[in-house]
Structure formats: structure tokens, C-alpha cells
């Protein structure tokens, strides 16, 4: 099916902003397991099912802690867990989940690595799924055959990325923006790093980062607090306490603008423009969240969409977002447009950015954004799936337990003056990195 608006916008809501409000937020319970993992739990009794998500500070930002030029270590480690554990091979592990209708998921980005299970509540389904998850977490085998196979597959995935202009643009953007910071490296590795990667690196990585003190367990479902406590305790019982991963280095901002144009035989030029943005817990978080919402964070109604798409028909998709992370994540403006109208579209985006930083949002725009954020809060927590993901974010970034309860108030406390001030201090149109991938006009 073809949808009208960019799907990207949906994704960004999750990465980008939580919000809360006058509506009842879920009642979040929080405790530690005996070996030191943080647990977050929300009881939800309407549907006989349980979601559990275990997140480790073990994303690709940690690759460098295992050795130089070993990008891909975190992703491969996470991926290998379910490829053989506690005497079961990948086939048996998958069968054990699927036989009870459980869905298992895992993945790894720059900050987080996670494993998740959704299961029916009935113990005859839930317990086998939990035991399987526990085995995968606690007794992975890092088998040689599985390693070779998954490494080969990852190499093809890296290769496939090179046929995608948006993927090429993204990799180059992070590489240029983050220089020698760990965020510069692609999570899936590079051709060169994957050649160097050995099984021993994965084992070292697992030992160091897949430990209780480096874990956040989020649970949502038809359970009592006692049941959830027992569940979390059992699940992580075989992990050593270990240590929480150390703080990531500070990110250095670019000192001047830089533009890179990669020639590629695509119909559209894929543009990413941006700078170093902010970390989780930043004092300007709410002001910048609101500022971005009105600029390019809310699809139609946002200034970028209005100027580039609605007024001029120059693009299907254009947006902006802050991606707050452990260390400063990026601020990114995205655009895709036919190659021969690249200059025109870029000109508009640059002009709008300059104007926005200089003058700030109009009072009306700000009011519209506030109404949307406030009124839309219940939609952000209307399913167990969304709530369990929010719990992970709150736990992982050590946000206050009442983060959801206070989000809307915190946004509502912003006004034009605060937003204008934050924009001027934090966004620097004269120090933007621009990466373009597309056919250069002949």
C-alpha cells in the first residue's frame, strides 16, 4: 500500500519525544534485582499477554571498547545470542518460542542493544518462552558456524546499503559529524571492520556488557507485582552483576560548515543537513523539542513541510528531528528531491532554518504545536507495545519515574522567549554539515 505521508514521521515520534498530560499515565513500578538490574513494570490486565524487554548499554557506541576498527561487534554479539544457547541451536531456540506462539525480537543501535518477548499470559505458554529467553541471555554459545554464517549475511547487508542513497547519506553523515567519537561508526560495521571481526571479540563484548548492572528490564502485562518481581529475578539470575558501562566521551561540535556531494545514479538527491544536537536530560530539551515540532517535527503543519511540499511541490518527504542520546545525538533535517531541483529546495531549507533561528517560531505556530502535543498525549501510550518501549527509554536514560506524568507540563511551561533563546544558543546555521547523495546535475 502507498501511504500519503512519510512514514519517517511516525518513527520519529517514538525516538524523539515522549509526552504526558492530564490523562492518567501508567503507574510505573520500579525496583532492582538482587544482582543489580533496574526493573520497570506496568500492570495491564485487559489482554491476557505479557511483554518483556531487556535492554543493555551495549550498542555500537561500545564497539571501540573491544578494539580498534571493530565496528559491528555490538550488532553481531546481540545477533549471535539466539543463534545457539544452553545446548540448543538456532533452530531449536526458534522452535521453542514459536511452538508457544511467543514472538522474540532483538536488535542493536548506537546506544541500546535489546531482546524482547511477547507471550500469552497463560503459564503453559509464558514459562517456556521465559526459560528460552533466559537461556539466550545467560548461556549463549557463540558457535563458530553460526558466527561465520551471520557475518557473511551482515556483509551482504552492508553491501545492500550501498545501493540505497538514503543509507549512503546516513552513514556518511554520522561519519563526518562524529569524527573520532564512537557514534561515527556504523552499527552494522564496514567491509573493513567485518574482515577483522573474530568470535573472540564477541565473547569479550558479551562478558563485559551483558551483565545485570548494565541492564534495564521492562515488563508490561497481566501480572501482579509479585509475579513481575519473580519473573525479572529469574530471568537475570544467571547474569553476573558486573559493572555499568562507563560514560561516553563528550561530542565535539563542528567548527564550520561542510558540504559533501556524493555522485550516485539515483533519481532523487537525498539530503541530510544537521549538527550535533543534544543528549538525554539536556536542560534545553523541552524548548528544543517544541521548537523542532513546529519547524519540521510534525509533518503537515510544520514549516518545512509547508514551504517545501505544500507551497512548492518540491518533495514528498522533508522533516527535522533531534535524536537525544547518551552523548549528544544529532539534529537532522532531511529532504529528498528530484536531482535537477536540488539547489532550489536546499535554498529554501537553508533560508527557513536561518529565519527560524533568527526570529523563532510565530506565536501561532507555537500554540498549534502545544495543542498538538498536549491533546495527542493519550495516543502515545495507548498500547502495551508503546508503554513497554517507553519504560525502556525511561530506564535506559535514567529519566525520572514521573517523566511521562510531567512531560506535557514541561512542554507547556515553554514560551516564545524560552524557545527563541534556546534556538539561538543551540542551532548554528553557519556550522551545518550537509551530505547529499544523488546524480550531480550535468
Amino acid at each position, binding site marked *: 500500500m502507498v501511504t500519503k505521508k512519510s512514514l519517517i514521521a511516525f518513527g520519529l515520534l517514538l525516538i524523539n519525544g515522549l509526552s504526558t498530560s492530564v490523562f492518567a499515565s501508567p503507574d510505573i513500578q520500579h525496583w532492582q534485582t538482587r544482582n543489580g538490574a533496574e526493573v520497570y513494570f506496568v500492570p495491564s490486565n485487559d489482554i491476557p499477554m505479557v511483554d518483556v524487554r531487556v535492554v543493555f548499554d551495549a550498542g555500537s557506541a561500545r564497539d571501540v571498547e573491544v578494539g580498534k576498527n571493530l565496528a559491528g561487534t555490538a550488532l553481531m554479539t546481540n545477533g549471535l545470542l539466539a543463534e545457539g544457547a544452553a545446548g540448543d541451536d538456532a533452530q531449536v531456540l526458534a522452535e521453542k518460542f514459536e*511452538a508457544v506462539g511467543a514472538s522474540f525480537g532483538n536488535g542493536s543501535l548506537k546506544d541500546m542493544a535489546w531482546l524482547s518477548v511477547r507471550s500469552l499470559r497463560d503459564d503453559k505458554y509464558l514459562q517456556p518462552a521465559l526459560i528460552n529467553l533466559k537461556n539466550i541471555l545467560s548461556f549463549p554459545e557463540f558457535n563458530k558456524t553460526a558466527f561465520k554464517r551471520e557475518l557473511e549475511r551482515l556483509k551482504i547487508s552492508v553491501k545492500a546499503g550501498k545501493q540505497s542513497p538514503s543509507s549512503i547519506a546516513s552513514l556518511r553523515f554520522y561519519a563526518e559529524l562524529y569524527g573520532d567519537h564512537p557514534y561515527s561508526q556504523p552499527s552494522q560495521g564496514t567491509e573493513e571492520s567485518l574482515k577483522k571481526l573474530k568470535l573472540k571479540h564477541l565473547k569479550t563484548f558479551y562478558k563485559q556488557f551483558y551483565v545485570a548492572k548494565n541492564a534495564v528490564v521492562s515488563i508490561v502485562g497481566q501480572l501482579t507485582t509479585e509475579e513481575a518481581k519473580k519473573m525479572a529475578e529469574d530471568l537475570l539470575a544467571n547474569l553476573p552483576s558486573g559493572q555499568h558501562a562507563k560514560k561516553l566521551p563528550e561530542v565535539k561540535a563542528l567548527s564550520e560548515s561542510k558540504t559533501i556531494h556524493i555522485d550516485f545514479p539515483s533519481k532523487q538527491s537525498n539530503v541530510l543537513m544537521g549538527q550535533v544536537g543534544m543528549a538525554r536530560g539536556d536542560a534545553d530539551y523541552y524548548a528544543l523539542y517544541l521548537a523542532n515540532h513546529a519547524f519540521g517535527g510534525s509533518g503537515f503543519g510544520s514549516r518545512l513541510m509547508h514551504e517545501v511540499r505544500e507551497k512548492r511541490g518540491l518533495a514528498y518527504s522533508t522533516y527535522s528531528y533531534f535524536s537525544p542520546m547518551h552523548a549528544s545525538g544529532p539534529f537532522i533535517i532531511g529532504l529528498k528531491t528530484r536531482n535537477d531541483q536540488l539547489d532550489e529546495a536546499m535554498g529554501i531549507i537553508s533560508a527557513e532554518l536561518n529565519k527560524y533561528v533568527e526570529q523563532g517560531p510565530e506565536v501561532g505556530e507555537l500554540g498549534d504545536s502545544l*495543542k498538538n502535543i498536549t491533546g495527542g498525549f493519550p495516543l502515545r501510550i495507548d498500547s502495551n507495545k508503546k508503554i513497554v518501549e517507553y519504560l525502556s527509554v525511561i530506564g535506559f536514560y535514567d529519566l525520572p519515574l514521573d517523566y511521562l506524568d510531567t512531560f506535557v507540563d514541561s512542554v507547556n511551561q515553554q514560551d516564545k522567549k524560552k524557545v527563541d533563546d534556546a534556538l539561538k544558543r543551540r542551532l548554528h546555521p553557519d556550522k551545518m554539515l550537509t551530505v547529499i547523495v544523488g546524480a550531480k546535475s550535468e
Partner: protein
Amino acid sequence: MILKKYSALFVLTGLLAGVSACQTNPSVNNADQALQGKQESRVSDSGVHSFMLKNGMKVLVKPDHRSPVAVSQVWYKVGASYEYDGVTGVSHALEHMMFKGTENLEPGEFSKIIAANGGSENAFTGKDYTAYFQRISSDRLELCLKHEADRMRHLQLNEDEFKKEIEVIKEERRSRTEDKPTSLTYERFNAAAFINSSYQQPIIGWMEDLHSMDLDDLSQWYKTWYAPNNATLVVAGDVDPQQIKKWAEKYFGVLQPSKIIPPKPRREVEQMGERRITVKLPAKVPYLLMGYKVPVLKSLMDKGESVNDVYALEVLAGVLDGGDSSRLSRRLVREAEIATSAGAGYDPYARQQTLFLFDGSPRDGHSVKELEAAIKKQIVAIQNKPPSRQELDRVKAQVMASSVYEKDSVFYQAMQLGTLETVGVGWQKKDDYLKKIQQVTAEQVQAVAKKYLLDDSLTVAVLVPQPTDTTKQRSVRRATGGRRGH
């Protein structure tokens, strides 16, 4: 598993959707006709309230009071498969223009109203449907119904807006299809697989047709298909069915019905032997697509035949690719190590016969030819021997669990009702699904594999990567006399 199945994922995200022509559905409409006479609402076992407005518009309401939110969707029986040569993409183009103002609202104003009320909204076009939706706090739902009804009959198609929007749509096509090698391959594959069925047409339309599309095409399309008696309203979430009924009568009930003339059937003619194409374009990784012609629920219902084959095909897809323990992952990715990814998929909810799909990419050191042979070997295996008890139990457990998990999303529940109703099988079929799957036997799975996965009804497309280096690429294009739009 580490890799997202970039290829299989692609197939499973909706390219399967849709079939073709032949519109009304007498077999399922008996209950509706009874309803229409009495103006009563009914409640199904699964808690769906249904009623028909006097003008022939159908309304389905699924209350779910977990959160103070609701989703409203209006589904029209029109989509890419209703289109004819030269105007492909017109359903989707009209969908875009539905946001560009009515006799009562400025372009973009509907979207602004929804946003100011904390809602989100969008629309989507498939082969057999065009649908518009809002997600919003349930106390503001009335607004959505009011304005959705307004644009059903009072759209104002404006030339200036269209000129900009058609360029937006072309950008969308570049982004979704032209710059994505696997998508472009799928488009060509589809065009090759169907001989006369309109399922050969891309939903977004051929670029050539987008270049020549004009406002009259859209205007005609709007007049022909946008009427209450060609639409279904689905509301799910924290709502009171009686209140929805009142609002539906107030806003939609006053709209005039149209005479809807069903599209010509264009049922696919029999395929007489394998069809095979190659697609050469700048890319890095080869990609294989295979599709066998298979029936769907609606096509069997139309013929008055047993629909059991459809559920057996669903289970077959589950045995082959329902999770990491299924056959394709096991045999092709992990054991033989021929594929980096391999998938299978089937969508029984379409108006006309469709394709049972396979796709995948070979590992380095293996060819697409080997991958194709390996997939065929799996097909032969299941044709020769029914799946094991464990495999069948696993698929059924997954279907049973999914029927619980789907309750976590009111949007998804509304989607299911809207799809079933709009492709013409009737929303009530959702209630049969679990039972029908549980009844499928191993022998039935074997039987449908033998009956439908036949070489003579197969279409194969192979993406043959060409250099992405631009200088080389240009010379290739010249050498092959390639032609591009402006």
C-alpha cells in the same frame, strides 16, 4: 537473527495486497440487505457493532475502552485495480488531493484541525481500496466524522493545488520505487506476472501516466466512486456505538448516494507456461522474486467453491516462512547457506486471484539460479510429503497467539474490518479465521502445494545488478538506449 530481511520484509509489508476487478459481493450481502431494511444495529460475537445508513453506507464499530482514544477510518471501494490503461495512479493521486480543500475548508485545513486537537491522520491506497483515517482522543472524534463526511461529497479540486501535488506524487514514486532496486524489480515482476488482470498495475501509477494526468481524470474518478453507498466507516476504540450511530446518521446519513457501476471483471486468463524477466539496474545485491497464481477468498466465493484452499495456503505460507524456525530460514539460510534471506508470503484478502510469493537474495558465492532451485526443492518437498505435526502445531499456535496480540492495537483491528469489507468478502470473515486455520490438516497443505505451485503458473523476476558508479552507469544507459522521463 541479525539481519532484517530487507527483501522479505519488503514483500511482507503490503506489496502482497490487492487483486483486481468485479465489484459487488452478493454472497455476503444478504445480512446487509436485511440490516438496511430494518435500520437496526447488530453485535457480532467478537463485539463488532454493524449497521447500514439509509443511503447505503455501512458502519462498523468496535468498542475498546483500554485508553481514551479512538480511530476512525473511511474505506472506499476503489483502488489501483479499478484503474484502466493511461490513468494508472489516479486513485492514489485523488487520495492526495482529498487533503486539498472542500467547499467548506481550505487546502490543508482538515489536517490543521486534526493536529490542533492532538490527532494524527493520513490515508492509504491499495489495489482494492482507498482509505482515510484519524487517530484522536475519543472526546474529539466527532470532528473527524464531520469533516470526513464533508470531503466525501464536497471536495474542491483546484488546478493550482493539483499542479504542485502531482509533482509531490512523482517525488513519492522516485523515493518509494525508482531509487529502490527491490521495489523497482517488484513493479516489473508484477507487470510481467499478470496478463490481463489489473493487478499488473503499480498502485502509485506508471511515471508516464503521472506525467499526463490531469484534474479531469481526478474529478471523474471522484464522481464515479466517492459516495456513501461505496464506502464503509470503521470506528474502533473508546466509543459508544449508539453515539457513533447518531453521528454517522447526522454527518454521513445526509449525503446523496450514487449509482455505482462495478468495474469490469478483468479476471486473469489462464497462464500457459512460465514467464520470466530480468531487471537490470544499478544495484549491489541480486534479488529473486517468484510468484505462483493462486486463488483468494473472494475469487473462490464468487465461483461458489469451497474456501478451504485459502486457509490451507495460509498455513503453507506459515510452514515455509512463519518465523525463524520455518523451512526457508532453516533450510536455505542456516543449513544450505545458499540464501542471505528467503521469504514466502500470501495474502488471501483481495478481490481477485493473486500470487503466492517467494523472494530472496543469494549468499556470496551462490547464484540466483541456485537460490531458485533451492526454493523449488522446498516446494517439491512439501508436495511429496505433508508437513509434520510439529510444524502444523507451531503455525496454529502462532495464529492463535496473534489473535490475542492484535487486541493491543485498535488501529490494526479497524484495518482488518475495513480490508475484509472493502475487498468484498465481508468483515464477518474475521471471526471465522482462527477456527478455519485450526481445521487445516497436513494433507490439505500438501494438496494445495500440489494444486497451485505449478511451473506453468510461475513468474520469475531476477534483479541483475549493474554498476552504481555513475560514469559506468551512464555509459550502460546509453549503450542500452535507456530512456527516462524528464
